[in-house]
């Protein structure tokens, strides 16, 4: 019967629909329906960024009409390129400075806190572990306002500006480092520490010779995420800034888009996106390189995503 109807045009159209439904929803095949949704989301989220990046290479002042490729807004425009506009240059410097200081201070503190919290048994351990998650869920604006109050009324020797901004970034970054490192600590367990102690290593030597090498991937991942969060931050940087000299790139972009922005704003945004991408990618690659052997062993020592256990 299907042979007979297949020759007529409407039936053929119907069968195309049926075939499409079969292609999307074949329970024995790949989950194509989900694949389509996933790709749809990726296009939706990445296309605006790509367009913004594209116009950072525009040769004219327009941010909407494409007139050809040029590095004008990066390097050679005498007054408005990222390289030659002192405001842009300074904002980039300020962002990198904050992110660098954040990584250098928040990561070591976060690692120590994670070690302490993961090995702390008994009263208070549970609530401390819970409180550690607070900065992750507190709205940033609340944290910004509270920190401003603290610096304005209690720790009055800390003035708004770079120092306050660094302290603010550290405050919310530590939690991320703690969560990542603690996840890794739980997944590697106590066995390596015990083995080291059994073989004659004092707690300090066990930490240095065994635990830190095993934590390296988590520490690198924590540093990469800290850097990316800090360079991306707007709310805290804005609340704790002292104007002019402490403007970061996100603050600058926000201000500029309210005036008449030039493609140089796109250029500096492109640079930011690039730096963030490279940092996170590097963190991921290091994490993978360090844990490759463990996955090959297949002994369930460390799952792929152990770093993101909470």
């Amino acid at each position, binding site marked *: 019967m299907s042979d007979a109807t297949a020759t007529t045009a409407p039936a053929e159209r119907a069968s195309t629909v049926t075939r499409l439904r079969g292609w999307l929803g074949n329970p024995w095949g790949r989950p194509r329906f989900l694949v389509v949704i996933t790709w749809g989301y990726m296009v939706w989220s990445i296309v605006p960024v790509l367009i913004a990046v594209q116009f950072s290479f525009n040769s004219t002042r327009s941010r909407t009409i494409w007139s050809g490729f040029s590095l004008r807004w990066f390097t050679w425009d005498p007054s408005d390129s990222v390289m030659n506009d002192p405001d842009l240059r300074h904002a980039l410097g300020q962002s990198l400075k904050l992110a660098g200081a954040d990584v250098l201070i928040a990561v070591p503190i976060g690692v120590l806190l994670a070690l302490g919290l993961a090995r702390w048994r008994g009263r208070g351990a549970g609530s401390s572990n819970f409180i550690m998650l607070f900065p992750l869920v507190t709205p940033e604006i609340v944290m910004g306002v509270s920190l401003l109050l603290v610096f304005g009324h209690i720790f009055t020797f800390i003035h708004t500006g770079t120092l306050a901004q660094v302290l603010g970034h550290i405050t919310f970054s530590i939690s991320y480092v703690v969560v990542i490192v603690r996840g890794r600590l739980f997944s590697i367990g106590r066995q390596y520490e*015990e083995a080291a102690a059994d073989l004659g290593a004092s707690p300090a030597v066990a930490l240095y010779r065994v635990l830190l090498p095993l934590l390296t991937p988590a520490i690198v991942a924590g540093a990469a995420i800290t850097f990316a969060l800090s360079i991306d931050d707007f709310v805290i940087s804005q609340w704790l800034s002292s104007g002019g000299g402490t403007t970061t790139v996100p603050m600058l972009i926000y201000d500029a888009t309210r005036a008449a922005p030039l493609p140089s704003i796109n250029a500096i945004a492109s640079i930011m996106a690039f730096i963030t991408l490279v940092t996170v990618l590097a963190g991921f690659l290091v994490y993978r390189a360090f844990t490759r052997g463990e996955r090959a062993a297949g002994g369930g020592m460390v799952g792929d995503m152990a770093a993101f256990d909470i």
Partner: protein
Amino acid sequence: MAGEVTLVDLVKRFASVTAVDGINLEMPSGEFFSMLGPSGCGKTTTLRMIAGFEQPTEGRILLDGNDMAYTPPHKRNVNTVFQSYALFPHLNVADNVAFGLRRQKVAKHETRERVAETLELVQLTGFEKRKPAQMSGGQQQRVALARALVLKPAVLLLDEPLGALDAKLRKALQIELKALQQQVGITFIYVTHDQEEALTMSDRIAVMADGRVEQVAPPQEVYEEPSTVFVADFLGVSNLMDAEAVGGANICRLRVGDFELDATRGKTDARGSVRVTIRPERVHLEPQESTGQNRVPGMVERLVYLGNSVQVIVHLAVGTTIQALLQNVGTEIPWKQGTAVQAHLPADALRVLDDTGAALAPLDSAVPA
């Protein structure tokens, strides 16, 4: 000779659980000593206290007469082979084995020599540069052994070291491990829940239950002459029967239902309600019409073919079910399902047991001996 471990009234309580409940054990130097018991019996906790990973709540741990209960693990002259091996994944085999020597600041050339020597002992020469992840489970197990043995400890602690390996490899390594222990001559304290492992390798076995020691004896004695209900049940098929001890001293007169049996083994001076056991291979099945002392009529309930033997499950007239194990010698077995038989339970095979009240393993986890 060094390596004598003595546990005195050892107790370990965790928040609400008493894991080890007053253990006294003496493990002389050079002995292969096993702690055998089901999970949760306290054997691993005891081992961890000897290693120093747990602090005893009470009691003493003597190594060659010195109490080391409060010495941290890195200062104890004992080494551990972990169940998970715990090889350092970021170090290669040679560096794993050399880890302890470097902590002792042994000279470089001596370290190299001893690492090579020990790797040869465990037959891993040539694997120095491999990472643990690039080795099989059996090889990793040998690295773990080498890493502990290279330090020439007075005592080697082994926490179910063969648990993660497949059955065939486990059998081969059991024999190797025993040979290795005799070669190096140090005390091995071995924790396992596998009775076959314990029976194969040990000089003596401590059977543990509920944080206590049920019996300490050489393998043959533990198997042949279990002193408690738990030991009889845990080591192989238990064939437990409730009985009433009514008299006798060297020969214990038992009343089981309407029948009277004599028993000459175990706690023969017991009186009142007792439990008795008999090994399945000691139960003789005879035709229905046979008569004599220590015979109980019954009916064959089931035959189970086990290859080299046949298990006959007999429902006795007194209400209990017992197993008889017949060697498969090629002749036909005259019993079928439903055959009425006389079960002969020889007096010198019936054992009166001491009931310590330790919970027995549930039936479905029982493994044929």
